[in-house]
């Protein structure tokens, strides 16, 4: 279980996150929706340790993440697929995936795990010896997801996985997210594509300029008039 309590994050004098609290229970798909600049990525970076919050607490199964070095977080079972994919362009697809398992201690099952990533993303299999920089945007997104899964996380954070992808690919990515969740991985999803995100989410939070203004089940929020007009195009 991931618990965020009264989280505040600033960039210099500007307070980007103004005290938010939310909970991600085991097995859920939770989505944070909101406009550009609402603080979605900032929140994700704080959870994975790339940003230090000013105050507040981030508890993963009872462990306070704000007090441990960021590189230790992944070995506690939390992996992030960052916004913009950020694959290591000069390394091959396979090297990227192996790096995903860098923090794991049980390396003997590495090949089986590679195989299971390849079965989820068959296209990566075809490209395994290619430098990742030569992949298409959709393939890089799959690689970034596969790389995060190689850490065998109990909770997966996805930051804008559908950004810049064709509608067909977006459907494919969302389908895969559901599949990952069905296999037992908790998902925290940040999306601008609110419609798609709400459709697969168990629960959702609306983030507006650093504050959570609405929450509910995915279905409830998809029907909410305020959400409809602001995020679902009327």
């Amino acid at each position, binding site marked *: 279980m991931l618990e965020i309590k009264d989280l505040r994050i600033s960039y210099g004098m500007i307070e980007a996150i103004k005290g938010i609290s939310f909970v991600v229970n085991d097995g859920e798909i939770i989505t944070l929706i909101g406009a550009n600049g609402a603080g979605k990525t900032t929140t994700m970076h704080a959870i*994975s*340790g*790339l940003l230090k919050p000013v105050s507040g607490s981030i508890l993963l199964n009872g462990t306070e993440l704000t007090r441990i*070095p*960021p*590189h*230790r*977080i*992944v*070995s506690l079972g939390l*992996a*992030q697929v*960052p916004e913009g994919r*950020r*694959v*290591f*362009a*000069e*390394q091959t697809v396979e*090297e990227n995936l*192996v*790096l*995903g398992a*860098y*923090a794991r201690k049980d390396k003997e099952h590495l090949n089986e795990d590679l195989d299971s990533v390849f079965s989820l993303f068959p296209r990566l299999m075809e490209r395994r010896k290619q430098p990742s920089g030569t992949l298409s945007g959709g393939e890089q997104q799959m690689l970034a997801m596969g*790389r*995060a899964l190689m*850490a065998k996380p109990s909770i997966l954070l996805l930051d804008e996985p559908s950004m810049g992808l064709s509608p067909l690919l977006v459907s494919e990515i969302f389908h895969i997210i559901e599949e990952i969740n069905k296999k037992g991985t908790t998902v925290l999803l940040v999306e601008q594509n609110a419609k798609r995100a709400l459709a697969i989410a168990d629960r959702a939070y609306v983030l507006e300029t650093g504050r959570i203004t609405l929450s509910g089940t995915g279905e409830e929020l998809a029907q909410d008039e305020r959400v409809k007009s602001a995020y679902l195009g009327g």
Partner: protein
Amino acid sequence: MDFLSYLINGLSLGSVYAIIALGYTMVYGIAKMLNFAHGDVIMVGAYVVFFAISSFHMPLAVGLLLSIAVCTVLGITIERLAYKPLRQASSLSVLITAIGVSYFLQNAAQLFWSSSTKVFPSVLSNGALQLGGLSISYLTLVTIGTCILVMACLMLFINHTSTGRAMRACSEDKGAATLMGINVNLIISITFAIGSGLAAIASVLLCAAYPSVYPTLGAMPGIKAFTAAVFGGIGSIPGAFLGGLLLGIIEIFAKAYISTQLSDAIVFAVLIIVLLIRPTGLLGRRIREKV
């Protein structure tokens, strides 16, 4: 025959430059900084070997190992004390700090060991291999051999070990590397350790060829090796190797065929021409604009 022997001398000098250039390029590739104190680590390495052999009568191998150990610790210490606190600072601040560390080491050496030149003992036999009409000294063979060995080990390490993959990941994207669970600070320390250890190896080869030890000994080879790293494409390991070798060959040819006095000017002129045509150096990665 003269041409061939100049070429071999150039390769030998270039091998030393290449080993030093590897230190510059690795640190630049991962920490994104120019460590101008790198040349002075060579100087410290040279003093350690000098004292080990002359004062404590140790065998060369022991002196070399001791020097590698001292330089490695020195490199890690410099990074921790001088550069790590500036991780978020502008690159200009880091550059000035590096120059400061360089002066600090030179003056510390002057204070402890005086500015007078010490004569490095002859450590390798003066013999030479006769090949037809060509005479190649053993020192030349050892130098070129060491460079090739160092390069091969480094390539194996970078491309085929978990730490090597982590180093490449850090050089591309430190944030994403952290998300993989890579301890970026540790990787930077390892990089400084490797670069400084290589500086110790270079110091022995350098002092075997030019047997005088003095506090500013590292400055000129340091700047030449830095040039070699830029020439080959800073950040690229094969680039440092290629740049070092080419720079050595150009320098020896310029000395032999044009002018001894002008050789350094010619070396830098070649660098300027190369950078005009290929701003990222011979094997440098093209800079991609982030969208």
